């Protein structure tokens, strides 16, 4: 990187500008327009000319129960599923790392869920969790339980969403934690084994602290990605019953495309952005303190 770098090579701009311009024009620049729209009252149906309303949209969002409800729903799905993903993903990575029988087979099958479109996963889940015709309730009957309406009762539907997210994204955690495990220095673990330190202590005193920075990053990625959830919910419950499983993104979409309230949706997406930024900053600050205590 250093050798050719010091010279003033103008050609470097030719390399970076196309990508830079596309991201700037497509991802960043529309935000400016959306930001101005978020301070206006814009309705497509009935069409009213845009009117500047200041912070009204934001005030309305913060005082609406539906916003807080969807925030709560999103947060509970994300936190529960990421916790499960991390625990299962890490344990499976450990098992694979220690070459459990048949681990090469698992590697491919375990990867698969990650690559399947969330809408497909949700459709499959709809079939699998069907109250009468689905295999899960079939198995329940076999063991003498009654049929459970998984998708029409809010807490159950949220649990199903957590299961789906865990099913789909645990492989991601496994993949990264496995890469991390393979990068650990082998000598330390050899030495610990020679000193007759049990596997439990070896994990908590060596593996876990050494992988803490990676864990922090992996959990961060999963949390940020998890907050975006819309497709699964859109197909599985459509946000229902009522608005009990509505997530933030789905709420914003519904405001914009069912009520055609563009100003509100813009404002909502910016509130969402602020929530993610604040949350990310707090998380990273806390994580840094935690890593420092271990290091």
């Amino acid at each position, binding site marked *: 990187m250093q050798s*050719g*770098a010091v010279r003033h*090579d103008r050609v*470097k701009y030719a*390399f*970076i500008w196309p*990508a*830079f311009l*596309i*991201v*700037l024009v*497509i*991802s960043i620049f*529309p935000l*400016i*327009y959306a930001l*101005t729209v978020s301070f206006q009252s814009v309705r497509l149906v009935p069409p009213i000319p845009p009117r500047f309303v200041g912070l009204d949209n934001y005030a309305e969002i913060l005082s609406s129960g539906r916003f807080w409800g969807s925030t709560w729903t999103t947060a509970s799905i994300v936190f529960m599923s990421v916790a499960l993903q991390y625990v299962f993903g890490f*344990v499976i990575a*450990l*098992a694979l790392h*220690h070459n*459990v029988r048949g681990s090469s087979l*698992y*590697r*491919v*099958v375990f*990867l*698969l869920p990650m*690559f*399947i*479109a969330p*809408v*497909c996963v949700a*459709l*499959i889940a709809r*079939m*699998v969790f069907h109250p009468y*015709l689905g*295999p899960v309730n*079939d198995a329940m009957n076999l063991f003498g339980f009654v049929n459970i309406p998984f998708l029409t009762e809010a807490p159950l539907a949220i649990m199903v969403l957590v299961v789906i997210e865990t*099913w789909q994204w645990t492989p991601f955690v496994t*993949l*990264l934690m496995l*890469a991390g495990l393979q990068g650990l220095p082998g000598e330390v673990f050899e030495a610990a084994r020679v000193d007759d330190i*049990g*596997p439990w202590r070896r994990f908590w005193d060596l593996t876990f602290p050494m992988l803490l920075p990676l864990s922090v990053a992996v959990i961060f990625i999963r949390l*940020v990605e998890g907050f*975006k959830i819309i*497709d699964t919910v*859109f*197909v599985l419950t459509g946000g229902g019953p009522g608005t009990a499983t509505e997530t933030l*993104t789905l709420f*914003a*979409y519904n405001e914009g495309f069912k009520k055609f309230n*563009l100003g509100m*949706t*813009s404002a909502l*997406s*910016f509130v969402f952005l602020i929530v993610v930024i604040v949350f*990310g900053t707090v998380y990273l600050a806390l994580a840094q303190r935690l890593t420092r205590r271990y290091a």
Partner: protein
Amino acid sequence: MENRTLRGLGLGLCLIWLFFSFFPLYWVFVTAFKPPLAVSQGATYIPFIDFRPTLQAFRDALSGIRGDFFGPIASSVMISLVATALSVFLGSMAAYALVRFQFRIRLLSGLTFGIISIGGFVLLNGTFDITVPYALLIVLVLALVASIYVNRLPLPGPVLGNNDVTFWFVSQRMFPPIVSAFALFLLYAEVGRAGLPLLDSFLGMVLAYTAFGLPFAVWLMRDFLSTVPVEVEEAAQVDNIGRIRIFFQIVLPMSLPGLLATSMIVLAFIWNEFLFALLLTTGDWQTLPILIAGQNSSRGDEWWAISVAALIAIVPMVIVAAILGRMMRSGLLSGSIK
């Protein structure tokens, strides 16, 4: 002794997880071959024992009596291939620049850009009544020129380097996508009013997905390209071969596995993407995920048809996952995942 119990537990968990991951896929696969009765009379599991498999659902789907399948498949294939190619290509170029050259960007220059673009837009659009697309275009050019000029001045304040530029690219992924998708929808609608239809068009979707894929491409390709030895390039430079030719004729061919892996990952993300397609398409260029999401309400409990639709979207991704799995086993990806 303790080790053996742990091994047993690990194997047990892996087997349970194998079942847990595999069962839903098995279910959608067999359901696609079920006749209607095998669905509506309760759960059936094993073909030839529980039910007699049939290809009827596939025939129905392909003959088009259940709505147009080929349109969304064709648009999904075209949009995702072109957008993947573009974003991996442009992303590799940007990543190469980030690996081999040094960038110094003043924070003040970035601030100038932000202030001029937001302030200028409000002024032009609000006060002078210039329509949104033109106002944005004027502001974009002005803000870029101004910030490049400011970057040349010897001003105080922090200077951002290559890592910050990479972070700028990657940070696009941290945004909730509804923010940019919705903003893009508003912008496309305005551009459409000015005469260039971007909503529900090939160009609009490819642009959106190229921008969507670029952060991954830059991030992954930066790691792959940094493993290409500098010496080869330096030898070529001694022979007075230009940077662009070096990039195309030496660097890209040398990082072919990395390019392939990156393309697969970006392709998977674009192929499965839902929100942008939901907001930016209405009919002609609808992609597969939108079609599949619609199956739910239009089909009710016709699971055989739903399964066929889902399988069409899943099969290409199974191939992608298999390719990546093989590359992973050969140790190619272990270096890039950090």
